[in-house]
């Protein structure tokens, strides 16, 4: 009996050690671990399939990196999250790499009959937005403030943890409307209709990218950041609907 226990224990140990990353060997071929805002899901994973990605709300990623997550690169949908980590010396100096704009999406069937942002105020509607700490949630609140529509916040039925969760709830028809980035509406364009938000009400959206300080692949991580800033990387972002780097922040 005891021998069998020992055998099982030994097998478990061997299995566990084989799962752990093999240090040293093949460092060159190791994929980078890239923590990126959920809105970058499609564009990053098709731009460079060789890397490992963790897509989520930038605020969640910030917390994970703060708690020692093994990321090499952090791409955030708002400067706040990268700058806070930079001040804590947990990432190298962040750079702006792209921009975006907000839209309102409704299910194709449009059950609440929403045809303009102002309809949110006039009609009963189940509105879904992201939480205030999530970049897109912050941008959403800015838009509503600029348009004098903060009372609409009382019609919010769910505060989601990232933009993809908002998109999903609307695309499924579970919610009547939701604020997302223009780039998130694209992959679900057969399921949703897009309502534009006027330019004067758009928030200043800046995506920042930084190399994580405790990365063990810093050279490769810096090279990857350069690749995103290169004409090829910028072209991929623009083709996905992202906007060029705002002039003021160059």
């Amino acid at each position, binding site marked *: 009996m005891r021998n069998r226990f020992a055998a099982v224990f030994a097998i478990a140990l061997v299995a566990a050690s084989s799962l752990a990353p093999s240090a040293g060997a093949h460092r060159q071929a190791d994929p980078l671990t890239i923590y990126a805002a959920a809105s970058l899901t499609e564009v990053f994973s098709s731009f460079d399939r060789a890397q490992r990605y963790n897509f989520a*709300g930038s605020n969640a990623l910030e917390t994970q990196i703060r708690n020692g997550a093994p990321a090499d690169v952090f791409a955030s949908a708002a400067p706040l999250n990268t700058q806070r980590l930079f001040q804590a010396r947990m990432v190298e100096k962040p750079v702006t790499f792209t921009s975006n704009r907000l839209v309102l999406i409704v299910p194709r069937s449009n*059950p609440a009959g929403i045809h303009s942002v102002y309809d949110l105020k006039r009609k009963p509607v189940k509105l879904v937005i992201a939480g205030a700490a999530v970049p897109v949630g912050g941008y959403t609140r800015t838009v509503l403030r600029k348009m004098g529509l903060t009372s609409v916040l009382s019609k919010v*039925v769910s505060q989601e943890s990232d933009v993809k969760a908002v998109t999903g709830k609307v695309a499924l028809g*579970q*919610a009547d409307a939701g604020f997302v980035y223009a780039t998130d509406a694209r992959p679900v364009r057969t399921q949703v209709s897009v309502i534009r938000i006027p330019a004067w009400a758009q928030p200043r959206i800046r995506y920042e990218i930084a190399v994580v300080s405790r990365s063990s692949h810093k050279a490769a991580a810096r090279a990857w950041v350069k690749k995103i800033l290169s004409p090829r990387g910028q072209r991929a972002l623009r083709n996905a609907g992202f906007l060029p780097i705002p002039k003021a922040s160059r």
Partner: protein
Amino acid sequence: MLVVTTGVALLFLVLPIVAVFLRVPLSDLLSALGSSAALDAIRVTAETIAFAMVLILVFGTPAAYWISSRRGAVRDVVVTLVELPLVLPPAVAGIGLLVAFGRAGLLGGTVDALGIDIAFTKVAVILAVTFVASPFFVRTAVAAFEAVDPTLPAAARTLGAGPGRVFFRVMLPLAKGGLGAGAALAFARGLGEFGATIMFAGSLQGVTQTLSLAIYEQFDVDFNVALAISALLIVVSAVVLLSVKLMTRWHSGSGSLILSAPSSRQRN
């Protein structure tokens, strides 16, 4: 060797639980529990789980009784169906509830027509909790009914008691220890429900944001609040588990109750 492996296993299991209480002073945890996010989540969780438990007991008890009186293929099929939510990943439960009861789901239109609004309401939370927690009750309840000495209901019947009377006056009192244990297990599972709820009911403070969802949200908003709610759930779950142990010991005299197929529960 046995002692060492047991020690390692115990340490591994206990460390994360202890760590929750050690990260910040206890006074910080208590004051974080007073935050509006935590208080709202406590209220939402209490309301939804109370309703879910009523549904589980009212529908689950007769179902368990029926199952316990059957043998053969029909029983196996029914038991399997009842057990499915137990082993399904919560994400699957969430998807299933969405495509069944969601506004664009199978019954979405019917439910809407009845004037019941499920989407993003407490009703959605209650459905999610009931779906994932009910198997814990039904399984244990089936075992509890089967553990009743079959000569007792038979005797009651020969003395002229109808099926209703046998159920309420004989079976329920005799099985109540197991039923209580099952209810406690379902309650503990319902308390921790996360995946199906966040997919199906969404998350809004004071409406659908249960304790588990509040931990997830507060994780990167105010970590202390997330810790405090975690600590609360650990304490409540421990109390529930302990009371299950006491209940089963009290009523059957046997040792601890472990979730297992009714037929494999043998006494030596």
